[in-house]
């Protein structure tokens, strides 16, 4: 009897992700990879070192589930005339992003799956979009059915190079992790933080949205009224059977709201959910910057490393 004679494992085997096409070592991508690998040298045994890097568990908490981000210009973008074409709109939106890059951004993300608890993420980011070498602070407060479950602040220097489309860009930084389920908190200095953009389940961070806009992979649906504000609606499809929408202010071209709709379904498939992000504008003043620091509730025990919440 093999493990796959078991009904459950057999069913799981059948649920394996479908390969688009059978990979082959003769493909151009594979051959290019082989050439690159031969460009590196083999390491003599005596000089070998351990190559694995063990990231602290808190890193995951800090960088995970980054469904949304925030936006906040310090001043209105100096663009007032509606652009006439997608090209002009792209230029205007990118210029507005650039103008607002030094501001603090704030977003409230609501993740909806039928039959599941309501999960929201509130995220503060300063600066809204950071350049390489800049210090970036991000706080993310997660609530389940309205009750806080985790509050994390990460502080790190933005590395060089683009993080777009990557899931791992490890940098050294500081992390404060407050775990409500275990009533504990930890401060980890000089720890590893994943500074990659998290495009799950759809581009929602300013950098990701900016990249989508810059790539031009969007359709202008036109001018609409969004809760009484004049807005321009853009749409694109990050994956089959999914739609992302972004509404930008018709005058400033800054994000007001974004939504992602996958096919109605269950958790597990990252695209089977609905995510709505409402962007807010916060000037980078001391009172707002203070929001980046998560308050440690009275009675919470400090630990050396974050403890894993029950059920994790």
């Amino acid at each position, binding site marked *: *009897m093999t493990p796959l004679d*078991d009904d459950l*494992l057999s069913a799981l085997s059948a649920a394996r992700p479908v390969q688009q096409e059978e*990979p082959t070592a003769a493909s151009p991508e594979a051959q290019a990879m082989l050439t690159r690998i031969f460009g590196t040298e083999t390491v003599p045994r005596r000089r070998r070192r351990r190559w694995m890097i063990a990231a602290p568990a808190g890193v*995951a908490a800090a960088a995970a589930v980054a469904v949304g981000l925030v936006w906040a210009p310090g001043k209105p973008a100096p663009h007032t005339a509606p652009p006439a074409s997608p090209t002009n709109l792209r230029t205007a939106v990118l210029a507005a992003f650039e103008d607002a890059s030094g501001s603090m951004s704030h977003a409230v993300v609501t993740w909806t799956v039928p039959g599941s608890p309501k999960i929201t993420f509130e995220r503060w980011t300063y600066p809204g979009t950071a350049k390489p070498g800049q210090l970036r602070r991000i706080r993310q407060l997660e609530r389940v059915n309205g009750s806080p479950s985790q509050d994390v602040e990460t502080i790190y220097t933005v590395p060089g190079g683009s993080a777009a489309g990557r899931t791992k860009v490890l940098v050294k930084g500081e992390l404060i992790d407050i775990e409500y389920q275990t009533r504990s908190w930890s401060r980890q200095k000089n720890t590893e933080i994943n500074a990659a953009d998290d495009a*799950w389940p759809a581009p929602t961070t300013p950098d990701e949205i900016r990249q989508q806009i810059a790539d031009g992979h969007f359709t202008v649906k036109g001018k609409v009224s969004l809760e009484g504000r004049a807005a321009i609606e853009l749409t694109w499809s990050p994956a089959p059977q999914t739609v992302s929408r972004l509404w930008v202010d018709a005058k400033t071209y800054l994000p007001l709201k974004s939504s992602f709709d996958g096919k109605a*379904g*269950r958790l597990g498939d990252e695209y089977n959910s609905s995510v709505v992000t409402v962007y807010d504008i916060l000037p980078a003043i001391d009172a707002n910057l203070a929001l980046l620091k998560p308050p440690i509730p009275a009675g919470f025990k400090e630990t050396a490393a974050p403890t*894993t919440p029950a059920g994790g």
Partner: protein
Amino acid sequence: MDAETRFRALFDSAYPALRRYARNRGLAGVDGEDLVAGTLEIAWRRIDDVPVDDPLPWLYVVAHNLWRNQTRKDRRRSEILARFPASPPASGDPADLPHDVLRAALESLSEDDQEVLRLIAWDGLTPAQVATVMGCTPVAARSRLHRARNRLAERLGLDPRVQQAGPARQKQGDDTDLKEVS
């Protein structure tokens, strides 16, 4: 055989398997390519350490470690997913479960449980090869598989004690038995 010739042969045989490994872990496009390239680059640098007879488990160890680092940020998502157990199929037959439900339940397990189940059910490894990948004895690998399988059943609302015979597979041998060993 010189190192380059040997590595070319290894590359030809391992590339498709590693691409499937990446795809089975949700890594496509650049991320999948990064994982395969990272794994094979380490294999090239350490070609003297790569087993000649059965290199795949060794490569999966490297890929597994790289992948875990690459996806640590997804752990938090798994923690959230774990809060929502699925509804069992009315028939009680796992084959009647939608594939996305099975994958969701798998994602809600611990990283180690997910990996042992993926290695067996998706990558087609034997428990002995899984033992090499996970750095444990074959006995421990079978035990881990058994426990992970039961946790998956629980997550799906199935009775973990019920272990029915699935599609007929005639291969025999203790090495591939799913029996709990404690």
